[in-house]
C-alpha cells in the first residue's frame, strides 16, 4: 500500500486552505448570493459576492464538502476579489481547462490554484474542485439575480 501518488492530489497548499479557509462566511452587504450543490455527493456551497461597477469587490463562502471542494472555494474567493466580472468569468474557464489537464497559457498566474492541477488525474474528484467555480461563474454572469 502506498500514499506516493496521493501527494499529487493533496498538496500541502490545498490542505492549508482546507484547514484555514480564506474568506469563510457570509457577506452582509452582498449583491449576489448563489447556492449550489453537487447532487451526487452532497457537497454544498453558499457563495456571496459584492459586485459594484462590474468589479467583484468582495467574496465569501460557506459550505460543506471534502478537502478539495472547500480548498478550491477558498482559493477561488481569493483570486476573484478585485477582478472585473468578465475576467472572473474567464478565470472559471481557465480553471475548467486546468481540470481537463490542458496546458495553461504562461501569462496567467493562478497562484495557489495551480496546486489543484493534480485533481485532473483523479477524474472522480473533478466535480469537487469545480463546484465553487461554477457558483462564481453563475454569480458574475447573472449579477443582479439572487438564485438558489
Amino acid at each position, binding site marked *: 500500500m502506498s500514499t506516493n501518488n496521493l501527494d499529487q492530489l493533496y498538496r500541502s497548499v490545498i490542505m492549508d486552505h482546507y484547514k484555514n479557509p480564506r474568506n469563510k462566511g457570509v457577506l452582509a452587504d452582498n449583491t449576489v448570493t448563489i447556492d449550489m450543490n453537487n447532487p451526487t455527493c452532497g*457537497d454544498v456551497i453558499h457563495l456571496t459576492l459584492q459586485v459594484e461597477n462590474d468589479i467583484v469587490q468582495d467574496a465569501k463562502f460557506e459550505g460543506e464538502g*471534502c478537502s478539495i471542494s472547500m480548498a478550491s472555494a477558498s482559493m477561488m474567493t481569493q483570486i476573484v476579489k478585485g477582478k472585473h466580472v468578465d475576467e472572473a468569468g474567464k478565470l472559471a474557464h481557465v480553471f475548467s481547462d486546468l481540470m481537463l489537464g490542458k496546458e495553461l497559457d504562461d501569462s496567467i498566474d493562478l497562484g495557489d490554484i495551480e496546486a489543484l492541477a493534480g485533481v485532473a488525474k483523479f477524474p472522480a474528484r473533478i466535480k469537487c474542485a469545480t463546484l465553487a467555480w461554477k457558483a462564481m461563474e453563475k454569480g458574475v454572469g447573472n449579477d443582479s439575480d439572487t438564485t438558489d
Partner: protein
Amino acid sequence: MLSKEIRNHFPILNQEINGHPLVYLDSAATSQKPRQVIEALSNYYNLNNSNVHRGVHTLGNRATDEYEGAREKVRKFINAKSTEEVIFLRGTTTALNTVAQSYGRANVEEGDEIVITYMEHHSNIIPWQQLAKEKGAVLKYVDLEEDGTLSLEKVREVITDRTKIVSIMYVSNVLGTMNPIKEITEIAHAHGAVMVVDAAQAAPHLKIDVQLLNCDFLAFSGHKMCGPTGIGVLYGKKALLNNMEPVEFGGEMIDFVGLYESTWKELPWKFEGGTPIIAGAVGLGAAIDFLEEIGLDHIERHEHELAGYAMERMSEIDGLTIYGPLDPEKRAGLVTFNLNDVHPHDVATVLDMNGIAVRAGHHCAQPLMKWLDVSATARASFYVYNTEADVDRLVDGLRIAKEYFNDVY
C-alpha cells in the same frame, strides 16, 4: 464463511486497481456479475434473440420461453402465488413509481395519509411526495430510534385510519437495519392501508417470502443481486393488480386497439409496455439460479459474519464512527462510517488509490443524512464474493487514510 472459490465466478474481481488487487466493497450500489450471468446474456444474444409473444417462428418461441421462464424463477424466488403477480420493470425505482402512479392515484384522496420513514432511499420518498402533492394528501415519516432501528410502537403511532399507503424499506442501504416488515404489514392492514416494500437491499441478501410477509407490493432490482442493470421486479397481489390501470401504454401491454378505445392484456403483461427487457430478465433468471445454488441462508449468514468482523476490526481504529445498530445480528452486510474529521470523499480517494472501492456521499438518503446530522458518510458494503481478507485490506486502508491526513494537516 463462504468458500473463497466463489470469487472465481466473478471475472471482474481478478484485476488490479491503481497497482493493488481490487477489493470491491460497493455492492449495495451495484453488485458484480458472475460468469454464469454474463454467459446467459451472451448466449441469449448469440442464439435466441427475438421479440417475445409475437413471432410464430422458432427464435420467437425460444425468447418467449426464456423470458417467461425467468418470470417463473422470480415467482419461486419470492414465493409469489402466481407468475401473474410478477411484473418485469426497469428496477426498484420504476416499480415504486408504478405503484404510486397507478394504485396511488386511484386510491389516495385529499387528506389521506402516506407513511414512510426517515431512513428511506430517495426512490421511496419522492414518488410519494409527488403523489401527496398531486392529491393533497399528507406524507408522514416514522422517526427512528437512537440506534437507527424502527420501533413498532412509533409505527403504530404514525399509522391511522386515514393512512392509505405504508411504504418502507426492508433493509437500509445506509444503516444496514433490517426492518420488521411482517409486523408493520399487520399494523398497516389493521388500518386498511396497503403495504409497499422497497426490497432493493433485501432481495440480494436474504430469503424473501411475499406470502409470509403478506405485503401488498414489493419492489427490487436485478443489478444489486448479480443480475444485469435495467431489470427489476414489481410484485403485487393479484386482486390489487387486476384493479389497477397501467402507467405505460403501447407495445406488449396491448390487447385490442380501436380508434378511440383500447383494451389491455391480462396480468402481468398489462404493466409491461413496449418491448420488454428480455435479455435483462434472462440475466436475472441466471442470477437467481446462481444465488440459489449458494443458498440465500448461506449468503445472509456470510454477510452477518462479515459485517460483524468488519465492525469489530473497524472499532480498533480511534476516531472511527459507525452508524446504525451495533449488533451485527440486527443489520445486513454493510458498514457506514466516518473517520475523524476526514471527509468521506477524501477517505474514499485514499482507499481507491489502494485498490479498495467504497461509496462516499449521501447514498441517495438525504433526509437520513440530516437525521444523522452529517453531510456525507463512507460505506463499505459486502456480498457473496467478499472475504475477511477484504475487510483486513479495508482496515489497513483506513489506517493509511488516517495517518496520511494526520500528516498533511
